[in-house]
């Protein structure tokens, strides 16, 4: 393969394809990655907008929303005042859109698609057409979810977890939610198969398992989680669809009373079944959100400390352990259902166990900083910001792992604060880090460091402004589902003044994304030109032309080195690319 000196572009290359084949129905993993990225960014913004609307109601309950309040129609916000049903829809759809349509497609669909084949030295994904099908299934799911806002009764309003029996008897939006979820599950199934097959089969010559960059390992474990954890939710979705459309009673107990009347169904089902099936997906899903983020951060920390990652193998084995354990922790979301103390004891043990590999990863990344000559570039700032934010998110999870401490905290803002620290200033910071880091490879231009630093520091401040007070409110007992932010509950009057502070922080967070958007579009057109390897990095994605052509590599690369061979003794430069031949 090394002597493959032929033409860089074979006959079937993308150059002579018409526009719609090249950019719309493309099978090139890089274009599909960008499609995922752009679509998911739109949903990220959309989901954020839903939350900003809710934050108005929480900060100023029952007051008309100025200026835009009347845009939402009398069915949702008569006179600009939000109705409870609309608030519930916003909450359910914020969660659904952020998890399934924004974050997972960004870290897995976008970054995974674009970077994984490059980092393993492959010409494309294993199954390019399946890859395209995966994107279009995702796109369809997104359209269905958006459409559900316009059906009678509005979008799904039973929470993002769609607990039955509430979801069984909810308005039509719930049916569309389920149909949308089936599309999204199909999409991630196709994606997961493709990622695993690609990583197993298409590693280039010399790319042994322990020469894989940690980002690829993280994506591999993520793909296994998606492959095996999503189907049970599909099964649950099918059963809930049956309950709603064929009037079965999978999740409906006998004698259920709704609005004072006994529901006319056969009964005999159990609502707990839905919870088990949902959280069997739901908990691995948490690691789907965080593992690729850890992968991105690892790449950037190695590159910007100019030294190898401390404990690379520990990272790999930790990721694998997380992958395994994440399948046996799900019922820690269900302590309040009265499963019995023995079951609870089992799940609190496994939950505490899974914190060990997570702490190993975080510790290895912290130790990697030690003694490095750190370059404080914008991607590095976001990667460094990730570490303490993920740390706060992880540590605040420990009281939720224990049965006794979880019960008073269950369904309060403490839980919201906990998992948002992991996903918002955690994963989203990693996403920003990844965008700043790989932007020059995608566009051939650098992003502005000055705007990037403004973006980082202000985002850091306002992220914490939103989520830190949630711990205070949660410990005082503010429930996550209250529509008035706690105004009508006497025992939380001491902490609800934080609502205004948090809402203003959220709106400010939206404003400080403006420098980022300017940076993104301005740099794409006018930014400083970047070389093929502007960060002096070692991994293979930087060994391609910029932007990488269809087929990626001019000559199939051969790998001789570990992924993070920075500052090797005896080397001429402070980085040794993986494909640099060993001198005899």
């Amino acid at each position, binding site marked *: 393969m090394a002597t493959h000196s032929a033409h860089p572009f*074979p006959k079937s290359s993308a150059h002579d394809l018409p526009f719609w084949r090249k950019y719309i129905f493309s099978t090139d993993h890089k274009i599909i990655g960008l499609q995922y990225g752009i679509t998911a960014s739109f949903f990220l913004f959309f989901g954020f907008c839903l939350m900003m609307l809710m934050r108005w109601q929480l900060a100023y309950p029952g007051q008309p929303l100025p200026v835009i309040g009347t845009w939402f129609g009398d069915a949702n916000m008569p006179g600009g005042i939000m109705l409870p049903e609309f608030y519930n829809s916003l909450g359910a759809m914020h969660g659904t859109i952020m998890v399934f349509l924004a974050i997972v497609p960004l870290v897995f669909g976008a970054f995974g698609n674009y970077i994984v084949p490059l980092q393993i030295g*492959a*010409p*494309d994904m*294993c*199954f*390019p057409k*399946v890859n395209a099908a995966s994107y279009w299934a995702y796109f369809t799911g997104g359209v269905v979810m958006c459409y559900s806002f316009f059906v009678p009764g509005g979008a799904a309003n039973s929470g993002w977890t769609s607990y039955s029996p509430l979801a069984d008897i909810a308005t039509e939006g719930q049916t569309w939610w389920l149909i949308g979820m089936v599309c999204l599950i199909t999409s991630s*199934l196709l994606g*997961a*198969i*493709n990622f*695993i*097959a690609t990583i*197993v*089969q*298409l590693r280039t010559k010399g790319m042994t398992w322990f020469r894989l960059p940690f980002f690829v390992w993280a994506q591999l474990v993520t793909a296994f989680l998606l*492959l*095996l*954890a*999503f*189907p*049970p939710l*599909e*099964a*649950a979705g*099918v*059963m809930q669809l*049956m309950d709603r459309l*064929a*009037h*079965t*009673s*999978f999740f409906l107990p006998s004698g259920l009373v709704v609005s004072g009347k006994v529901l006319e*169904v*056969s009964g*005999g*089902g*159990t609502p707990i*079944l839905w919870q*088990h*099936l949902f959280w*069997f997906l739901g908990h691995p899903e948490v690691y789907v959100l965080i593992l690729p983020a850890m992968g991105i951060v690892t790449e950037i920390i190695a590159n910007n400390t100019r030294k190898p990652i401390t404990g690379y193998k520990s990272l790999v084995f930790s990721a694998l352990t997380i992958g395994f354990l994440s399948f046996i922790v799900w019922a820690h979301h269900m302590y309040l259902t009265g499963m019995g103390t023995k079951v609870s004891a089992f799940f609190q043990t496994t939950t505490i166990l899974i914190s060990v590999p997570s702490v190993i990863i975080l510790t290895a990344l912290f130790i990697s900083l030690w003694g490095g000559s750190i370059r404080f570039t914008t991607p590095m700032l976001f990667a460094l910001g990730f570490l303490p934010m993920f740390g706060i998110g992880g540590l605040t999870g420990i009281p939720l792992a224990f049965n006794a401490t979880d019960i008073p905290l269950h369904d309060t803002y403490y839980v919201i604060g906990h998992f948002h620290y992991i996903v918002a200033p955690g994963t989203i910071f990693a996403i920003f880090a990844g965008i700043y880091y790989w932007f020059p490879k995608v566009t051939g231009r650098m992003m502005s460091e000055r705007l990037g630093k403004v973006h980082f520091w202000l985002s850091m401040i306002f992220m914490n402004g939103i989520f830190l007070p949630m711990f205070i409110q949660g410990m005082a007992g503010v429930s996550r589902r209250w529509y008035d932010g706690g105004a009508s509950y006497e025992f939380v009057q001491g902490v609800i003044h934080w609502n205004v502070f948090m809402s203003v922080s959220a709106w400010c967070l939206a404003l400080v994304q403006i420098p980022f958007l300017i940076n993104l579009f301005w740099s794409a057109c006018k930014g400083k030109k970047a070389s093929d390897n502007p960060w002096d990095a070692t991994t293979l994605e930087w060994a391609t032309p910029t932007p990488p052509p269809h*087929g*990626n*590599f001019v000559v*199939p690369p051969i790998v001789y080195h570990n992924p993070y061979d920075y500052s090797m003794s005896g080397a001429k430069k402070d980085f040794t690319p993986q494909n640099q031949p060993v001198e005899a």
Partner: protein
Amino acid sequence: MEIPYTVKTRPDTGLFNAKLGIWLFLASEVMLFGALFSSYVLLRVGSPDWPHGSSILNVPLGTLNTLVLITSSITMVMAWASLVLKNFSKFKLYMGLTILLGLVFLVVKSFEYGAKFHHHMFPKESVYLAIYFTLTGLHALHVIGGMVVNAYLWGPGSKMWETDPQRFTNRVEVSGLFWHFVDLVWIFLFPVLYLL
């Protein structure tokens, strides 16, 4: 650059791409049906009056369908083996039989469904009927999916035998793996729903 190992096996993994792909797909299918079987167990354990399957369903017809599917699995293997032995007309015969047996299975199944509907036994009547129709319905969808692929490989798709016989044999093998899985699911479904 062409994508490697689409036809040939990769030496260190011993697999061509699609074979790994179908095994991964089947792993996710195991989780899908596994979740439904687990739900069956949970619902049954929690139920005070779970009916005996044979008191509601037609066991002889179910047995017949079990035999039909097992036979179709054998003809599926024969179809693939014929290609390995470079006997294309035998392949056409056995693949055709596989598709026909799939059709027989669906016809028998639709008679069973029809009889249930005739007696006003709908999914909404009880949790037992709900899980019966959900499991067998999902399984029937898988049978249809397998038949569509097999019909393509029997008909227009078989032209590939002339141009790329190795790749075509691989395709039949992959389709066969899926067909065996569908058969295997029924082997579990039949006793769980009809006999227990």
